[in-house]
């Protein structure tokens, strides 16, 4: 008997009885606290809690200037966003290893989640998934209208199986492994900055 058959047979033999029904998850999920603050303000607060930053910019040109201002020493700016080209187009990258020298990665996220201060990124946006974690710093463009309140809302919006990789990124890489001291930039990006401007504004 194969391992698969063996395990499935053992599980079938042993599943506990009585069977428990699958509970309904109410949609939208009833939040007992009500609306404390605007979804956008809550997103910005939570992002800060997670160690990220957010700024509002008027358009693509202002975003471009902001990236230069935030990272004046950056040599390699690898962009996955047409309106903010950087020094390297991620579409030109053949192999993720080529991203080892990226100072700043620029990506557009289709979705933000207020309760977690998280942005959603998939292979569709990143093109090369490693861009999100190998870049020393990350700049994420986000339409303020694309921020939802909770993780429940977020999971209803996304098509998980449509992309091999999708990540909720809440601030930069972090660790507290040495005496609980929170340090950003453990392995992945050292900083994460969200730039708010409406899609289509260039």
């Amino acid at each position, binding site marked *: 008997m194969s391992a698969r058959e063996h395990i499935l047979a053992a599980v079938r033999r042993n599943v506990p009885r009585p069977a428990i029904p699958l509970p309904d998850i109410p949609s939208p999920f009833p939040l007992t606290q009500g609306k404390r603050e605007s979804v956008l303000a809550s997103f910005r607060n939570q992002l800060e809690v997670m160690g990220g930053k957010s700024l509002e910019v008027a358009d693509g040109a202002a975003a471009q200037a902001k990236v230069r201002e935030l990272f004046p020493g950056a040599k390699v700016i690898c962009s996955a966003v047409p309106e903010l080209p950087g020094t390297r187009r991620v579409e030109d990258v053949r192999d993720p290893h080529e991203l080892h020298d990226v100072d700043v990665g620029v990506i557009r996220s289709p979705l933000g989640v207020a309760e977690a201060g998280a942005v959603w990124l998939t292979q569709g946006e990143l093109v090369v998934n490693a861009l999100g974690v190998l870049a020393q710093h990350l700049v994420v463009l986000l339409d303020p209208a694309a921020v939802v309140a909770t993780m429940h809302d977020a999971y209803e919006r996304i098509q998980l199986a449509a*992309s091999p990789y999708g990540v909720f990124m809440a601030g930069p890489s972090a660790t507290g492994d040495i005496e609980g001291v929170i340090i950003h930039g453990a392995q992945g990006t050292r900083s994460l900055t969200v730039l708010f401007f409406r899609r289509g504004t260039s």
Partner: protein
Amino acid sequence: MTRAVDPEGRAERFIALEEHEATHDRLVWGMRQHRDQAVAAVPEWEQLRELASQIKEHTLTHLDQYLEQFEQNATKLGTQVHWARDAEEHNAVVYNILQSHGAKSLIKSKSMLQEECGLTPYLQKRSIEVTESDLGERIQQLSNEPPSHIVVPAIHKLRSDVAELFAKELGTDPTNTDPHYLTESMRNNARPRFLAADAGMTGANFAVAETGGFVVCTNEGNADIGASVPPLHVASIGIEKLIPRVRDLAIFIRMLSRSALGWPITQYTSHFHGPRRGGELHVVLVDNTRSERLGSPDFWHALKCIRCGACMNTCPVYRRGGGLSYGATYSGPIGVILDPGFDLRKYRELPFHSSLCGSCTEVCPVKIDISEQIYKWRRVVVGNGLLTITKRVGMTALGATLSHSTLFHAAESVGETALKILPRAVLYNPFNPWGKHREMPTVPRQTFRQWYLENRRKP
């Protein structure tokens, strides 16, 4: 015969390191307090707990169906699904995948299942270079120690310990104990390893049957680097990690990091559905005693565990004695109820490494009856004749005394008189564990029973 681990002796040695014990207690209790703040900010917390518990119980009572559904959907996405009955088979499957790709170096993110299977020593014996990429896990790897906590593996170490270790292993400045400096040194050491690795390995926090994908939660982003840079990604998934639907994820993701560290979410919540562009994805579904536990009416609920570590952070025994005192892959209250299922003889002392205060049960986000199970494991240990001689003699005498009122009252007055008149040397010696690290109580003038008979039973 397997030697039983000695949690008391190990805890005693940790407690003797006063600075370690005090720092550990402070940090671990700090995580519990941070968790309380995060939970208080979510008024619907109890509703989430109840849903999480029901979803897990539903999945486990239909596990065969969900495993098949997961396999079918994962295969459709181009993921190669493997099955492993036990630790040995898991390790062999992983080794075969690596070998068939000519992979010589592996970068791992933290996986308790891979710890449980002893994967790293298995691969190292076969000349595969294995690097743990989570900072805490790497510290433990370099120290030749298992993780002492499931979320923060090196929490029992002081920064000075890490500085000393890194000086020896990575050539850092031994006098610089700044955690920023130490973390940066590890980042710079690990990065070339990520870039040179032939394969990346992860565990999984959740596997979603309806999509055939799985979710990995980390704070460092190390799982994402391991999965996105090398061409080959292998994930080990315990069969109890299944959940039915995408929408169930919201419940668990909202609870996991709040319970663990008091953050609203982990920095990275990463979803893998089939191989990335230019890559290959393998999943190993591992049983390793899980199907057997499923058949145990007393203990199957432990399979609901999402490995948040909240029970460890709240446990008074864990906080003082440290995670390594359990001498097992899983420590803390969850370890006490998981480990004996792997080897009852070896871990027979663990169910007694608990005060049965019940705090673990209260903080568990998926409502596992942890303290009840600890008590039930004690009965299993006794039922299998595995109680140590000192406990057996003491418990038998205590049981007899407590069940007969005359005997109890006689013992009471003997005890009182003894405490009053015996010299210190008789009370505080190695044969009286109750006299260690503490003063025996002062004896009141009279017992409650004597007082009651005098004051309330007067005719």
